[in-house]
């Protein structure tokens, strides 16, 4: 039993990502979409918090959203991987529930 969490807000704009990180459980997955993809960047004020979770929680960014915002793959934190919309669909199917952090 595990959860897919979606985060669609920039971690510099709202507290959604931090709240998600504070509530997800080992074995869950987090998918950053829309402005949420900024949470996958290296060298930011939240990078350490994200990196810390990347061991116990699978963390993804939606690549079409990262591309739209000009985020190159080599700027993503280690352990943060890109998926496309098909991958998004698989993540939803592979977890027991989806929780949106709006």
């Amino acid at each position: 039993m595990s959860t897919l969490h979606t985060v669609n807000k920039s971690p510099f704009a709202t507290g959604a990502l931090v709240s998600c990180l504070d509530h997800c459980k080992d074995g869950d997955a987090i998918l950053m979409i829309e402005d949420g993809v900024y949470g996958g960047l290296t060298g930011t004020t939240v990078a350490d918090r994200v990196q810390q979770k990347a061991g116990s929680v699978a963390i993804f960014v939606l690549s079409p959203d990262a591309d739209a915002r000009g985020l190159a793959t080599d700027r993503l934190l280690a352990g943060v991987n890109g998926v496309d919309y098909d991958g998004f669909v698989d993540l939803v199917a592979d977890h027991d529930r989806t929780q949106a952090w709006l």
Partner: protein
Amino acid sequence: MKFGVVISEGPYTHQAADSAFHFVKSAIAKGHEVPRVFFYHDGVNVATRLSVPPQDERNIQENWSALAKEHGVDLVVCIAAAQRRGILDDNEAKRQGKDASNIAEGFRISGLGQLIEMGIQTDRLVTFGD
């Protein structure tokens, strides 16, 4: 697998309706069923047929109407949320004494029970909002 989808924000202003559209297209292409999409909060504004986006932008309402037609997706607009925001079908317009309706083809207005029912009857529920 059966997916239910909730859209909580209006078109163009938030990316929610776009993200949901790409998600639903992919889900159907991968063999999943998306029996219903529920439009709530400002999401009801996706359903207006009066929208005229610039020529070089996507037409969000038309995209949804076409997807619904092609794949039989039930596009349900919450009646309470729609009334507040001025989204009406012909019946509602008549009932409320309004001189025009604005709902687009493929969308239908119904109650919040349809959202709960979707949660009960689908395997996964995915929300796109703000």
